[in-house]
């Protein structure tokens, strides 16, 4: 079924009897009562047609049984998404080779285990400190350190020298009284730096589940990173966690991308039987939105960016997504 679309303002109303589009301009009447009546009649008529059409389809499905045409799916923004040229094809040789030679090639080739350094601004607020503590429990092999007034570039240099593979900065804007609103992930030694907007943070202490944490290395699930940029961001986030998960711990971290927002969830799962699986959400949940991906370590003034979110140029359509 073709997607329904709004008629543009200048376009004449179409007289498609089978699938009437939005109400025609002739319904507009100056008198509000009469207008209401006319719209009500139109709506009743549309609903009636819909019901009849559905009955017909059901009848056809019953008659044909297996051969019936598939059930019509409602359109969502995801189904109407503008297809992206840069979508990664699974069998693409060039992308596979590029991945091998990537900054994360070492991680995915199981050469270097990740070691993460987590820090915030100069005087982090109590909530941010709690968030950092929880993140340190969620991401294995993480150290939390105070910033001690050092700059991002200097921290990156020193951390790289000391053997850390990743650096995470939590940014907070105290004037807005929101706990934390930014996350900068710098992959060391010379890897890309991703700047995210952090939102919707909910701590496990609030959920009272923090006592249920274990220390097993978790599995990582990356959902819906389809484009080249998404592929790269997904790899970058995956390289935070150890590549050898301990399945015994039944712990899973999900990074789910939908409409360019990355949702982080932490669950413990248990398979009841072959088909059913019970999930218990532990651990903090937060949402990330990519603002920029910079090639090289953080250098906002003289560095080169792989991708920058340019709102007016890129987000002119509600159906266009970049990850």
């Amino acid at each position, binding site marked *: 079924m073709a997607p329904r679309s709004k008629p543009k303002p200048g376009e004449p109303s179409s007289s498609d009897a089978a699938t009437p589009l939005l109400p025609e301009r002739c319904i507009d009447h100056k008198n509000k009562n009469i207008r209401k009546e006319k719209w009500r009649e139109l709506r009743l008529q549309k609903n009636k047609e819909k019901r009849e059409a559905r009955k017909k389809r059901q009848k056809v499905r019953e008659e044909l049984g297996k051969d019936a045409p598939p059930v019509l799916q409602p359109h969502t923004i995801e189904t109407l998404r503008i297809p992206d040229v840069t979508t990664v094809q699974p069998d693409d040789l060039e992308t596979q080779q590029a991945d091998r030679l990537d900054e994360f090639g070492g991680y995915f080739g199981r050469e270097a285990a990740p070691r993460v350094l987590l820090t915030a601004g100069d005087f982090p607020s109590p909530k941010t400190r709690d968030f950092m503590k929880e993140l340190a429990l969620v991401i294995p092999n993480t150290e939390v350190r105070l910033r001690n007034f050092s700059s991002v570039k200097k921290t990156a240099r020193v951390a790289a020298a000391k053997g850390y593979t990743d650096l995470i900065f939590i940014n907070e804007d105290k004037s807005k009284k929101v706990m934390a609103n930014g996350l900068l992930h710098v992959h060391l030694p010379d890897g890309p730096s991703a700047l995210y907007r952090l939102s919707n943070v909910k701590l496990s202490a609030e959920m009272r589940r923090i006592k249920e944490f274990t220390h097993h290395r978790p599995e990582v699930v990356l959902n819906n990173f389809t484009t080249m940029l998404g592929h790269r961001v997904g790899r970058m986030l995956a390289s935070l966690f150890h590549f050898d998960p301990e399945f015994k711990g039944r712990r899973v971290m999900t990074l789910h991308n939908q409409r360019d927002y990355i949702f982080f969830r932490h669950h413990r799962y248990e398979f009841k039987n072959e088909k059913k699986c019970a999930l218990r959400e532990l651990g903090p949940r937060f949402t990330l939105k990519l603002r920029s991906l910079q090639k090289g370590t953080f250098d906002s003034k003289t560095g080169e960016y*792989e991708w920058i979110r340019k709102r007016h140029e890129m987000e002119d359509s509600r159906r266009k997504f*970049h990850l």
Partner: protein
Amino acid sequence: MPRHCHNVYVGAETGVLKGINVTEGEVQTSNFHNLTALERENEICSMCWGDDEQRQVLLGLRSQQVKVYDTVQGTFTMSRQLSSGSGPVIGLAKHQGAVITAVESGIVTLWRYAESERVSVNALTTGEKLCRMRQSPADSAVLATGGQENDLQLWDLARPEHPVFRAKNVRPDMLDLRVPVWVSDITFLEDARRVATCHRHSVVRLYDTASGQRRPVMSVTVGEDEPLTCLSRTHRDHQVLVGSGRGRLELCDIRMGRTVLALKGVAGGVREVYCHPERSYAASVSLDRFLLLHDLDTKKLLHKVYLKSRLNCVLMRRNFSLNPEDAEEDEVEDAAVQPAPASTGPELEDEEDDLQIVEEFLDVPPEETKKKKKRKLPKLKISGEDVADASPKKPKLPKLVDMSKKKKKKKVKAGESKG
């Protein structure tokens, strides 16, 4: 498709050389490498044409190798490992048949066969690394170099001890602090005595090497905190196209001292910009893996090609054109069969009389006569690799009159008229 059909060449970070055939309607890409044998060390860091006929492409790699790709044969004909200084090859040129290479550690070498004739210059007298080396269009022995904290210097290979021209930094700013210098790209303007440089500190500077003034004649600030990474002179001498690391492509007027136009479509840092010397085409290549082709006169984005790897360098052929009449002009020029007058591209005025003669020989009757005289541009196409539908081969118009100076009219539409 014959290999020499490609009119744009792009070098990628993974080391792949890609040839792209851009026509008005579609774009076809091919890779010239064995994709399973890529190495990080073979990243293509610089590219240039190997000869005047643009048959050879020289590639400079991160591992200090120089490779030669022959476009007619479609193979790599030569590969040489160099050992001068350290770092990737950031500049390539050819002088009297010998290759000139510049590496990041500052050594610029003219590689003649006999070791005694080799000329070597250390361009990095100050600063941390060399970023660019360009050759003067007038004299192939004159090179311009610049880098991080290393301001513009012009060298003559005949006198390699001292630079011919050494730029002086601008005066300290209002806080009396020295203005930092990071030359990321250099271009010689048409008269080859004026040189423009762009800096990662968001300035474009113009030097006049023959005037005796070492300070820049003009310094244009482009945007705020825009790390400018590449620069190219355009078909108009007073304008220069600049690309920044934040994905801005701006046309800068050095006479007026400000940006005239900002081109849209780039999401990542622009790595290299190449403008056609006569026609208004600009090819730019960026870290978001796209090749963009703009028209500077109409400000439109003509083609946006997705090329899968992060891209480093771009080259365009002299006979590049999306206009089939220009292609014929070039053939006429190249073949030198007919005594064609010097054509300077499609920028000239139309003449009614000649148009009438053209119409007589068209198979399709011309469209309504009241259309505008503007050249119609093709729609924006965003294409991936290997577009399935190939355009039909266009038969040539009979060459009866000297119509070399014609702008393409809407009537003589590419697909329709010649079929």
